């Protein structure tokens, strides 16, 4: 293993922060969703890194489950976005405020 483990962890932290910045700054529902996927992937990178450096396959197994949940989340979330778009004709999360009291 010629690459220090810290490099992978710092890259993972950077990708997570990029995802957080995307969620905070963008107003398009689909882009917010993709930023969440970016954050999930950075967590996956950390899991695979530790799994590989320790030599234990359970971390990669967990990545497998995270991917399952991400697939389910993407299917349901995009269906919700389609239903919202059909009713409000917009994807801007500032204009979707029907749940605000």
């Amino acid at each position: 293993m010629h690459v220090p483990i810290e490099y992978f962890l710092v890259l993972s932290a950077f990708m997570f922060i990029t995802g957080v910045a995307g969620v905070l700054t963008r107003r398009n529902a689909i882009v917010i969703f993709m930023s969440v996927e970016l954050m999930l992937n950075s967590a996956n990178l950390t899991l695979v890194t530790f799994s590989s450096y320790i030599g234990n396959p359970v971390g990669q197994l967990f990545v497998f489950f995270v991917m399952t949940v991400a697939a389910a989340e993407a299917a349901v979330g995009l269906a919700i976005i389609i239903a919202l778009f059909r009713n409000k004709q917009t994807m801007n999360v500032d204009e979707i405020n029907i749940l605000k009291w």
Partner: protein
Amino acid sequence: MSLELFLFLVFAAVAAVSGILMITRSEVVMAALFLILNLASLAGLYLLLNAQFIAVVQVIVYAGAIMVLFLFVIMLLRPEHEKIVTKISGIRTFAFIIAALVFVQLAYVILKSHPGSALNSDVTASVNAGTVESIGTELYTNYILPFEAAGFLLLAATIGAVVLAKRKFE
């Protein structure tokens, strides 16, 4: 500089830059394409980490299935271009400052704690951990219950997506 380190730097640079480009493009399709580039370079990093199975699954499930679903919905709905300058741009700068601060904190903790010194990374163990065989053995013996639960989750998500995207409840 070893080949491993060189490949890491290439993949890491592509992943970081495409991530930043993803959250700054105003066209949603471009953002999705940059996310696909990011996921593909992550698959390369997984190969570098000897995680062959996860690398292949990353390409098939993420870049193949999930992102195609995203692109499908984007092209179906044709969203108008988002105005990149929002009304309150103070929130935007505030968000970037907070993100940068948190990143500096995380990087400081990671580099200061130096987790590499506590690990005796054995390449053979790492290669053996990433094979389909070892992951499959774990999945079908110790983790069979979570595996079944994941199957139910996917079924529920499929039904939920169909019900939500249907035009009317009748």
